[in-house]
């Protein structure tokens, strides 16, 4: 028996066990039978193409399993045949809503191996752009959240205000979605004239947007009824599954890599707060993200006032060869902890890059979290866990 046959057998066995579990809980009087519900791959709640197979007993989920791989692009293999500067254009596309934030940990890992540190000015600008991509990413999440429950208005607000942030990112980097702006040793360019004043105005707008979403969604009775107490993930489970970002903080773990690590970035130059929530339910996860967006606008505002002068590129060779070694760098990205394990052999390109993306771990808790919930809650739990398909499949 080949390995493939054996595994296919396993899959059938698993499906069989699930169906048995569903059948054993049937109501004998009503003579109901379990059914399998297929959600996706094309479903608005999946932010891409994720398929969820759920085995139902009436309205309740007995067993659910996400099926990934509809967007697998093989970045870990592709990175092995590219040079270090070329890799940033790949990793840009992992989490496409906050793409600048994907470049930063990879560049930091390469800089760590080379022993180069970016000048203070570019560290500041990096942090500002990092937080702008967080705002762009999470504001879309906040708008999208309403759509999952049938509220159409917030998504228009979100798209309107995200546009301002994307314009800022475009103004500084030239790319709305895929900036590819970060370089080993600094940044490609300095900020354009007038950008700082404009950014401050936009941050004000974004704070108003947060208040509007707060009013429209978080104070809404229907929203609370569908979010509170639903999809509770306790602290221990969250840690075991390696949840990160707002999902972990919503389970009461005081954890933020921006604060807890010493990276050559400028987060420690600003005064801000890490929000946690003790409940661990869908509402907590969304609420922490809303607070995080507010904090991000504060970080950007403070850093804009204190950008130091000086060069934006450190002295690096024209052709970048990274010395032999291994490095792990992770940052607190909009979706959670994103890290790169870079192994170098002293060549033009990396020997191996392990991409630890946040959504992969965040989604691996889904079979656990979806067990026993009602069908309409599948969508809200998935929405509150917040994943992006490119970030799961890489």
């Amino acid at each position, binding site marked *: 028996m080949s390995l493939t046959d054996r595994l296919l057998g396993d899959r059938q066995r698993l499906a069989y066990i699930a169906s048995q579990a569903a059948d054993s809980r049937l109501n004998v009087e009503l003579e109901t039978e379990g059914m399998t519900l297929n959600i996706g791959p094309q479903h608005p709640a999946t932010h891409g193409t994720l398929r969820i197979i759920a085995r139902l007993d009436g309205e309740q989920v007995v067993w659910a399993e996400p099926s990934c791989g509809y967007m697998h692009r093989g970045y870990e293999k592709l990175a092995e045949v590219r040079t270090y500067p070329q890799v940033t254009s790949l990793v840009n596309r992992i989490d496409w809503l906050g793409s600048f934030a994907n470049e930063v940990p990879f560049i930091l890992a390469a800089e760590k191996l080379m022993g180069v540190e970016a000048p203070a000015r570019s560290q500041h600008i990096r942090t500002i752009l990092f937080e702008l991509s967080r705002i762009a990413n999470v504001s879309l999440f906040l708008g999208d959240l309403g759509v999952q429950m049938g509220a159409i208005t917030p998504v228009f607000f979100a798209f309107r205000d995200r546009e301002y942030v994307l314009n800022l990112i475009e103004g500084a980097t030239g790319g709305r979605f895929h900036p590819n702006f970060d370089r080993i040793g600094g940044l490609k360019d300095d900020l354009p004239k007038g950008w700082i004043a404009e950014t401050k105005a936009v941050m004000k707008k974004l704070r108003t947007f947060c208040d509007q979403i707060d009013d429209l969604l978080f104070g809404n009775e229907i929203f609370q009824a569908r979010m509170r107490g639903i999809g509770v993930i306790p602290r221990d489970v969250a840690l075991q*599954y390696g949840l990160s970002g707002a999902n972990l903080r919503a389970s009461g773990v005081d954890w933020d890599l921006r604060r807890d690590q010493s990276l050559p970035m400028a987060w420690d130059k600003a005064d801000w707060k890490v929000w946690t929530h003790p409940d661990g339910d869908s509402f907590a996860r969304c609420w922490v993200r809303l607070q995080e967006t507010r904090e991000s606008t504060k970080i950007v505002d403070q850093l804009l006032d204190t950008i130091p002068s000086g060069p934006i590129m450190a002295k690096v060779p*024209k052709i970048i060869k990274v010395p032999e070694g291994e490095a792990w760098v*992770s940052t607190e990205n909009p979706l959670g902890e994103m890290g790169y394990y870079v192994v170098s052999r002293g060549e033009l390109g990396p020997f191996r890059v392990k991409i630890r993306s946040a959504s992969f771990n965040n989604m691996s808790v889904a079979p656990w979290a979806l067990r026993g919930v009602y069908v309409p809650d599948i969508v809200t739990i998935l929405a509150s866990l917040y994943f992006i398909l490119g970030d799961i499949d890489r």
Partner: protein
Amino acid sequence: MPVQPLNEKENLLSSAPEQSATSTQPRITSAAEVIAALGDRLVDSFHKDDLWLRVRTDAWKSSRRTLRDTLGFHYFCFLSAIDWMPSPFGRGEDDPTEPTPVRDTTIRSGYAGGDTRMQVFARVMNPVTHVGVIVKVDVDDTHPSLESLHDVYAGANWHERETHEMFGITFDGHPDLRNMYLPMDFEGHPLRKDFPLLARMIKPWPGIVDVEPLPGGGAEESADES
């Protein structure tokens, strides 16, 4: 509209964000403490800005249990593998009209050493002290298999599935080693170094056709400081 924080306006937060529940957990302070706790299960260690440990293959699971229960590494970050054999295809930039050059495929391990071609490595963190360790383990060359960690860290489930698919390493005791990304009848293990990147094999990389010398540079080796 005046800015009002949510918790003041609606009083939705039942209690203040708690941070005290974690204080009872064990803390680790030094690399020496970790090394002492693992004892003879540890083969090698390397300490730079991170801590790399290499444990015995038969002690993979038990050492992870020790790390979790005694030293408080409750947070599971990731698990993956490395194939230490350099690729016989290089960077996929060979001229298809020329005979394939012979490349050095000597296996050379990284930090904390290694005796086999492939190694599994995983990172766990202490959520209180924010100290992380990278644990490596050798896997057998002919029959790569390892104990599954899914009952120590539930999150290892998907990571082991991915590693099995990409490197062909079997995890004993894993409940469901199906492929995550590729079709089930896919042959080969894509992240092994002897698996060619087919896109580069079919169509050569455009860079090999017209290599321009850098302005003022000349050959590739003269990587002078700018």
